[in-house]
């Protein structure tokens, strides 16, 4: 008889209270499940161990999508933002992205407060070492003291803690983040269960003391004039706004690194984990781009009440004595004091081809994974998987159909489809170029795209839904008005057009044709022919985008239609890829391991040719036909 077991039985236990874990726990609790969120250290809930910022290109889109589904990240980002920027404003609206600099302690506190107030959700400190599996399904977890918790599902959101190993020069420490316990029991247990674990590497730059920096040698970064909140629900921004500073490394810095490569944990061969190419350690920059004369350094504030400055761009895995020389080689940092050294960290991850679209593992029913354990990097990527896994765990508990968006609906769907289809060879980060329907997946329409789904899951309230639906109606109405309104040439009209810097008209012309001109915005045409309705900024923005980019939007919609046709062709669960006549052995092996669920997913697997896809289509048809035949035969035999 086991006595060391907690009596309460949970629907869902979320292991890890980082950005993935918090969203998973909140969404599932809000859907009515009883949830336990466990963390090794409750003072690190929603910690920002790297850059103290939320959003960025493509990441901003993810945050808005999380928000539209009723997630927490955007709201907390607004509550704790000390700097707002919109990136890519020189480009079109599809790739505009929001980014905030955040007070990292306030971020942690604000998220923790929301979790503590959430009904159905318990937050506890414990280090989970073992999973309890019964008949191939998850049944509970056990902490390092042997104490057990019972549950129906588990979400693993373990970040960099699985066999975490921190490196500074030749020194390595078992650590989940610098100064924190790592979990060495859980990954061993996962291997025993049959999971294939891989090893990734990431790192973080040094933190410098503000008062030791000569900011006069740096350029103040442009900050957005009017900060626009990230969350659709935020009304007001409270904290004071403070800037970042930009400077550069120089030849001296580069020579120093080059001369000391042998002391780097990355280049001395100590580190085996795969690093991300988009986030290179400084050693990588010197080796891969030896001709570059300088690299950018951005000094970012870590909070209002701290002197710590995040030195973006100076990440490395060198010993302390070289880090100090390296930092001080930068103009303006000659006297800089390092408060926390840069370090590299290696950790275990599950190659995500072992995971289903709902983020449930193929191996263990009821076991979900989210965040860095799936080979991703970034708070936003983690949070998006967190809400996805949390919703799906709740759907499983409540016997509802799985929550799965497709690549035409959301960035988060692009990410998850990429992960489960292609796996992750390096830490996966979101980029806009990963999304083939990028024009449709904008920050500005995330609520229009997803809030109704959020509402149907019970994560968005009625008022918000009503607001979105009314806006949608208004947008359609206004587009129709503009397309149906003819402007006739007159001196007044033409003088106005000229004053707006655009060609006058000779004949009657539909209003939308004027709006399509690149130099014209909604306000200009609204002044030409005023709408009878009160058109707010949000509606005007959508109307302008829909009309200006109509041709391309139509193109993307046609592509999406084609894409959906292939997605709809499902591959039966018990279909045997190795028996497909006419496929190469290499493809057979690959398909058997990935087990795509549709022909659409198959088409995105590396090495799939159009003819292989045709062959598969025929084989699936044959397979289904045989089943049909057997069913008919069985029926005849029955009667």
């Amino acid at each position, binding site marked *: 008889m086991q006595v060391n077991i907690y009596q309460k039985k949970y629907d869902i236990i979320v292991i890890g209270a980082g950005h993935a874990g918090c969203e998973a726990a909140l969404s599932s609790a809000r859907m009515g499940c009883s949830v336990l969120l466990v963390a090794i250290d409750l003072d690190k809930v929603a910690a920002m161990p790297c*850059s103290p910022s939320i959003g960025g*290109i*493509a990441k901003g889109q993810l945050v808005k999508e999380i928000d539209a589904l009723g997630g927490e990240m955007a709201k907390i980002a607004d509550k704790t933002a000390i700097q707002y920027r919109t*990136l*890519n404003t*020189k*480009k*079109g609206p*599809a*790739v505009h992205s929001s980014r905030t600099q955040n007070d990292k302690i306030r971020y942690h506190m604000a998220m923790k407060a929301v979790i503590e107030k959430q009904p159905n959700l318990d937050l506890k400190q414990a280090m989970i070492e073992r999973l309890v599996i019964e008949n191939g399904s998850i049944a509970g977890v056990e902490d390092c003291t042997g104490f057990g918790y019972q549950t129906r599902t588990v979400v693993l959101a373990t970040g960099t803690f699985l066999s975490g190993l921190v490196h500074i020069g030749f020194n390595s420490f078992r650590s989940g983040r610098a100064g924190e316990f790592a979990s060495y029991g859980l990954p061993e247990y996962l291997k025993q269960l049959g999971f294939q674990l891989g090893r990734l590497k990431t790192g973080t730059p040094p933190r410098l003391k503000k008062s030791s920096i000569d900011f006069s040698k740096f350029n103040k970064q442009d900050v957005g004039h009017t900060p626009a909140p990230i969350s659709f629900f935020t009304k007001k921004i409270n904290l004071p706004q403070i800037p970042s500073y930009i400077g550069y490394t120089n030849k001296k810095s580069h020579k120093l690194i080059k001369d000391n490569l042998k002391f780097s944990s990355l280049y001395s061969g100590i580190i085996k984990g795969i690093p991300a*190419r*988009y*986030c*290179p350690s400084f050693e*990588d*920059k010197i080796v*891969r*781009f030896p001709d*570059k004369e300088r*690299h*950018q350094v*951005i000094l970012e504030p870590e909070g209002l009440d701290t002197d710590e400055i995040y030195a*973006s*761009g100076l*990440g490395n895995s060198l010993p302390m004595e070289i880090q100090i020389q390296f930092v001080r080689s930068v103009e303006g940092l000659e006297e800089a004091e390092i408060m926390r050294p840069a370090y590299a960290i290696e950790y275990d991850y599950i190659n995500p081809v072992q995971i289903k679209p709902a983020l449930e593992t193929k191996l263990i029913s009821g076991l979900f994974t989210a965040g860095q354990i799936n080979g991703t990097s970034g708070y936003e990527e983690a949070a998006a998987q967190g809400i996805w896994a949390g919703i799906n765990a709740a759907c499983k508990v409540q016997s509802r159909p799985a929550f799965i968006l497709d690549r035409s609906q959301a960035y988060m769907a692009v990410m998850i489809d990429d992960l489960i289809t292609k796996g992750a060879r390096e830490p996966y980060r979101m*980029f*806009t*170029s*990963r999304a*083939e329907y*990028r*024009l449709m997946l904008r920050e500005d329409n995330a609520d229009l795209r997803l809030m109704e789904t959020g509402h149907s899951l019970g994560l968005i309230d009625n008022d918000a839904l009503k607001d979105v639906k009314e806006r949608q109606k208004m947008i359609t109405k206004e587009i129709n008005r503009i397309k149906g309104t003819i402007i006739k040439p007159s001196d007044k009209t033409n003088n106005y057009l000229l004053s707006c810097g655009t060609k006058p008209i000779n004949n009657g012309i539909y209003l939308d044709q004027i709006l399509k001109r*690149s130099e014209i915005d909604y306000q200009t045409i609204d002044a030409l022919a005023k709408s009878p309705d009160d058109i707010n900024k949000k509606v005007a923005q959508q109307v302008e985008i829909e009309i200006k*980019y109509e041709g*391309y939007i139509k*193109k*993307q919609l046609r592509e999406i239609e084609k894409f959906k*046709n292939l997605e709809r*062709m499902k591959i039966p669960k018990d279909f045997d890829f190795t028996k497909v*006549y*006419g496929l190469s052995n290499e493809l057979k092996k690959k398909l058997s391991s990935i087990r795509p669920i549709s022909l659409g997913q198959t*088409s*995105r*697997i*590396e*090495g*799939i*040719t*159009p*003819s292989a896809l*045709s*062959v598969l*289509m*025929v*084989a699936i*048809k*044959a397979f289904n*036909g*045989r089943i049909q*035949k057997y069913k008919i035969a069985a029926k005849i035999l029955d009667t």
Partner: protein
Amino acid sequence: MNDSTIAAVATPVGAGGIGIIKISGQNSLPIASRIFRGSHSSISNLEDKDSIDISSFKSHHLYHGYIVDPENSRVVDEVLLAVMLAPHSYTREDVVEIQAHSGPVVLRFILDLVLKCGATIAGPGEFTKRAYINGRIDLTQAEAVIDIINARTNKSLEIATTLIKGELQLCIERISDYLFNFLAEINAAIDFPEDVEEIINVDRITRVLQNNIINTIKELIGQYDNGHILRDGIKLVIVGKPNVGKSSLMNCLIKKERSIVTAVPGTTRDLIEESFSLRGMPIIIADTAGLHDTDDPVEVIGINKAKDYIDCSDLILFIIDAGSILTHEDHEIFKIINTKNSILVINKSDLFSDRHEVNTPDSWEKMPRVEISALYNMGLDGLKDLIVRISLGENSFDPRAVIIPGLRHKLILDQCLISLCLAVDGFNSGSPLELIAIDIQEAIALLGEITGRSANNDVIDQIFSRFCIGK
């Protein structure tokens, strides 16, 4: 998946007297309706813009009529048309079969019309694949269907290794690599603006797009149009006033009796097309109705058709009678063919033992001339030499030096050209980069349909290998 309507020439080129164009899919009837005129409409009605709706046709019945180019109402060919309604067809979709005269030019022209009206050209084994997917073929045949798909693909791969197709493949891959590089640059500028500021050099990209890529594609499309000489043969037309021996000449060249040869002027009332091989070069030869003034409505049609045919021919054999002096009609014919490549063929030279020169106007001097007797089969070798020399040009002609895309490739290149021109316009007018990326992406995907490369190429890899990206 199968909501598109596909079409192809279903019979081998040059074989048999009849060629079949097959259309399958939900739009096959509306498409065929646009280009078919039933013979029950009187001849004057052929020019009517109103097409007839073939959906009223009985399934599995043959209907006589004409294929008409809906753009200019010109009659292309006289055909038999059959409708096979779903599910009682090979593919179990609505199928239309058009039985036309099997000249490759005519068949290609009809297929072009069908494609213009909204069909897409059938991929390798696609009719069979559809038949299978739609349950027409028994399950046990699944493997055979796969063999067909693979065989067709392998065959095109095999062809790709030969020099002509291989060059095309290489050329398209080169273009595709260029575009992929541009796409990587654009995406790097979008996704990493802080790392790779100002890497987009609009001038350079538009210059390369315009001068190298767009022009190359235009050349390829042009070579398709010229390339039909090698693929489909040279189109020769025999013209001349009635009863100068046009049909006899044709029979000599193709070595068989086809046109009814009589001494009554105007016997050849219709256009007769034949194909044969001349020194290894495929030739399509057409014998026209004698070009002369007439009120006979049937003859008028024949004569008009001949004039149309002259317009799209490669070489004209203008035949005159050495035994009679030039008439008004001969001069009129010369006016019609004046701008075309022509050979003056002086027939019945055997009737004159003294071989005196035929008296022709100075303006005729530009035509190379040859004397023959079609009746006695004399002087034909000289004519054949002349045809080959003029068709292929003075330079020795090496077909392997020219890259000639097929029809499927040409259609893809047409679309690709549109996308790339949009991209150039976009750059010039300062469009947002993510829109230009859509055009370039589309062009790359289209080219992938030619090379068979999967479009899963990772643009992210390309970015990281070329730019210094990092926080």
